Each structure stands twice: as C-alpha cells, then as structure tokens.
C-alpha cells in the first residue's frame, strides 16, 4: 500500500506544480486562460482530448459494465461517443475554429442573438456539468478508498483541492499539460495490461472463446431491450459536437485542420483503449473471478492478481488520472459558463484585467466547493442524473448549432425555438409526460429539428451579412 500511496502523492504534486507554473502565463490573459493561446498542436491536443473524454468510467466503469451486462452492450454504450468525434470533426471543428471565440455559447449567441441564449445555454451547461463533476468526484473517492485505504471523505477533499487549484490558477494550459500526462498514463496502463494478458493467452479470440465458454452471457446482451442502448448511442453521438469541454478543445487548436485531425486521432486512441480493456482484461477477469459481487472491481482484481506493487501503484494513479482529466475539463467549461458566458459582457465593460482574473479563479472554486459538498453525500441515481444532463445539452444545442452552421435558412426565430423545444421536450419525455415509445433523446431532437424548420421557413430570413459571415467560417484557414 505504501508504494501505491507514494506514487499517487508524487502524481498529485506534479499536477499542482504544473498549475503553478502555468499560472505565470495565463492569469491576466483571457486567450491564454480559456483557450491556451490557440496554439496547441495536433499531437498534444489528441492526447488532451482523449484524456478529457476518458473519465473514471472509461477505465473502471467500462470493464465493470462489460463484466455484468456483456461486451456487445458495452460497445454500444461507448461507440456513440466514438462516432460523435468524426461527426464533430466534419460538422463543427473547422467552422468553430474559424469563428475563433471561446465557448459554444459565444457561437449560438452570435448566430441567434438573444438574451435567452446568453442565459439559457450557460445555465444548461452549469446544471449538466455540475452533476457530471459530482459523479467523477464520487468515483475518485471510491477508488482512493478501495485502493489506498484512505477514507472516502478525505480522498474527496484532497482530490478536489488538487484539481481545483491547478484549474483555477493554470486555466486551459495547465489542463492541457496535465491531460497529456494523464492520457499517456491511462493508455500505458490499460493497453500495456491488455498486451500482457493477450501475450500470455496467445490471442484475444482465444481469451474470448475461453471466457464465453465459462460465462456465455459475456458475448450476449443481458438486457435484450435495445431501446436504451440506441438512446445512449444517440445521446453521445450528438452531444460530442456541442459539448462545451470538447468544443473548447477545438478553440485551442492552431487551426481548423489541426482541430479535425486531433479529434479523430484522439478517438482512435480512445477506441484502442476501450477495445483493449473489454476484449482482453474483462475476459481474463471473467475466467479468473467469475462471481464478483461488485463488477466494477474486475480491473483492480486483475491488476492485483497479475502485477507487482509498482505497477499496481501506477494503475491507481492512472485511474485517478482518468477521473481528474475529465473533471478538470468539466470544471473549466463550467467556470467559463459563469465567468465568461453569463457575466463576461457585463464585467468586461467595468472591471480591470486583475479583477477579471480573480473572478475566473473564484468561479472555479465556487463550483468545485459546491460539487464537493454534494459529493460528500451524493444523491441517489447520480449516474442516470448526469447522463440525463448530457442528454439535455445534446437535445438543446445539437440542432441549433448544426443548422446554424449549415442551413442557410436558419434564423433567430428557428434557433430560439429549436433550443427551447429540444431542451423542453427532453425534460418532458424523460419525466414521462410525453411518451411516444421512443428514447427521450429521439423525441427531443425531432422536436428541436421541427421547431428549427418551422422558424426558418415561416420566420424572417437571415440578413445577407450574417450568411456571408457563416459562409466565411466554412473556408479553409489561410
């Protein structure tokens, strides 16, 4: 246990050190703080995007889900996000990078100018992402408690203090550097473990054949009802092109092409990691530990039984890295929704650069402390709550963003109608008020698209100047 604890302390200290170092550059510059000066290259952005998406759930959760629900259902769950990245790279990456602001709210408020957009969009982001941060903190607490023997509450407080410190003072630059370290660590641990397991077994197919002989349910669907799998797939595929912590990564890229490449390379790395985990580590876990009461422990049991203490310590750091690399990106996006989207215009007219920097730091701490408070006694059904939050973002933002970039007849009336109809219908469908026998996200996206079409066809056409500005976003960077 001591070796594991020392390695984790070293890792946390390195994260703080990166934040302190980055703070020298970023605290008084909006460009540096929110989008790392827009000069992140494709290789670094690839690893940072991969780490931002790969949460604690991508290491602990994916293997636990495959162990209990079968491999096909697990792939369906994660393939949605993977498909979302190519969609994002084709539909929004070049255009939003050419737009050259800071957040998805900036684009929607420019395309469909209205106070409703300036208030509703960041409010949806804060609600959805706070729930997401609480879930991640809970995962960090459980992991540290199980692997390091640290009490849940202590682990939560330490993890929160560390990541809020480096996010609040180091901004996007600190997040990018720590995410690169965290991404490399995750890939090394998961893919490395899978390669060792495959090398010992001969091939992944031999492993799967052996595992499905012991437990045939591993290759099937525990729940033959496919509706929820379709719903999750669509939620993630449509969320990725508009989800704020990924869109902010697009704004950090050097140019549109670099953004497109890094999104796809990131997903390739992410896919390799998920496939390695599910096709190698889970089958071995099922063979060696067929009756685990807590399926989420399968990765840790395999690591504990197959590897020495140093590797176990690195694995613990990798799990914490997965949690923190997502949480820090969520925290910055949430903080930008408050300090930039909600208060930005008002403050920039009256406040000095120093005051603005203090407000950026303060907003990160307020969200971090609130999330910590709720994570100390997390609400029931938190996972479903935050997945619903991501669904809400997707239902509200996907159609206005895509139509705003691609449909020439998209106008202010259509944009506002589709934003409100998408988010509103999703809440009603999720609550069972509206029920068409379809996943809520399908109903909400359809309502949002209909509202956009009605507004665009019946409302006043957009000005030629706006059309020209949108056409310019589609051009290649010089």
């Amino acid at each position: 246990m001591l070796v594991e604890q020392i390695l984790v302390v070293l890792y946390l200290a390195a994260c703080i050190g990166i934040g302190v170092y980055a703070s020298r550059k970023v605290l008084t510059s909006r460009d540096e703080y929110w989008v790392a000066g827009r000069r992140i290259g494709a290789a670094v952005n690839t690893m940072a995007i991969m780490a931002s998406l790969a949460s604690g759930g991508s290491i602990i959760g994916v293997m636990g889900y495959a162990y209990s629900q079968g491999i096909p259902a697990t792939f369906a769950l994660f393939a949605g996000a993977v498909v979302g990245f190519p969609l994002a790279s084709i539909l929004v990456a070049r255009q939003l990078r050419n737009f050259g602001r800071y957040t998805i709210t900036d684009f929607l408020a420019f395309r469909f100018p209205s106070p409703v957009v300036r208030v509703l969009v960041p409010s949806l982001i804060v609600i959805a992402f706070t729930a997401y941060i609480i879930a991640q903190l809970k995962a960090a607490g459980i992991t540290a408690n199980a692997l390091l023997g640290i009490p849940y509450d202590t682990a939560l407080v330490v993890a929160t203090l560390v990541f809020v410190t480096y996010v609040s003072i180091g901004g996007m630059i600190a997040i990018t550097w720590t995410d690169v370290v965290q991404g490399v660590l995750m890939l090394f641990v998961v893919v490395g473990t899978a390669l060792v397991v495959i090398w010992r077994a001969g091939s992944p197919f031999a492993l799967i054949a052996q595992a499905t002989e012991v437990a045939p349910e591993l290759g099937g669907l525990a729940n033959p009802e496919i509706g929820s799998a379709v719903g999750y797939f669509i939620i993630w595929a449509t969320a990725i092109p508009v989800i704020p912590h990924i869109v902010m990564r697009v704004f950090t890229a050097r140019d549109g092409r670099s953004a497109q490449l890094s999104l796809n390379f990131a997903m390739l790395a992410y896919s390799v990691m998920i496939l390695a985990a599910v096709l190698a580590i889970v089958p071995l876990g099922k063979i060696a530990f067929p009756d685990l009461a807590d399926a989420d422990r399968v990765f840790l049991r395999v690591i504990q039984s197959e590897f020495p203490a140093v590797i176990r310590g690195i694995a613990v750091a990798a799990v914490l890295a997965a949690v923190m690399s997502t949480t820090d990106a969520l925290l910055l996006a949430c903080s930008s929704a408050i300090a930039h989207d909600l208060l930005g215009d008002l403050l920039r007219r009256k406040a000095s650069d120093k005051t603005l920097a203090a407000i950026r730091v303060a907003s990160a701490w307020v969200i971090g402390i609130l999330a910590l408070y709720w994570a100390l006694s997390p609400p029931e059904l938190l996972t479903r709550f935050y997945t619903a939050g991501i669904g809400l973002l997707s239902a509200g933002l996907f159609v206005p963003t895509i139509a705003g970039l691609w449909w020439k007849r998209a106008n202010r009336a259509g944009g506002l109608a589709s934003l409100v109809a998408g988010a509103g219908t999703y809440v009603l469908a999720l609550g069972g008020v509206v029920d068409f026998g379809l996943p809520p996200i399908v109903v909400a996206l359809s309502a949002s698209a209909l509202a956009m079409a009605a507004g665009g066809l019946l409302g006043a056409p957009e000005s030629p100047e706006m059309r020209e500005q949108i056409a310019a976003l589609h051009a290649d960077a010089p």
Partner: protein
Amino acid sequence: MARGENFFPMRRGEKIALVVLIVFAAASFHPIARSVEVAGMLLFGWLMAALMLLSPLLTLWVFWRGRPRN
C-alpha cells in the same frame, strides 16, 4: 433561393463519410445482428467494435486525401 442552395456546401468525401457512418451504425442495430453469434459473441458486438475503429480511421483518411498540397 434555389432548392440546392439551402445548405452551405460540404466536401464530397466528408459527405460520403457521414453517410457511411450513419448507415453502418443503423445497420449494426438491425435485429439480425442481435441474433447471429460469431466466435462466442453476438455480431452486434463485433459490428460496434468495428464501428469504433472504422469511424475515426475513415474520417482521417478523408481528411488525409483532402489535405492541401504545396
């Protein structure tokens, strides 16, 4: 505005990639894929795994082909 001018133009390769990804994903969810088993696992699972690799590789290939030539 003419019918064909309702949308900003998308590059041909990107359009094809989008269609391929959507058709592949929709076909993967077809009931037949959930009734056939290959090497101990439902075909649905193998198709989803293939989609996870195909989608970024296909889009990277499209971008590589469309890269600016100096």
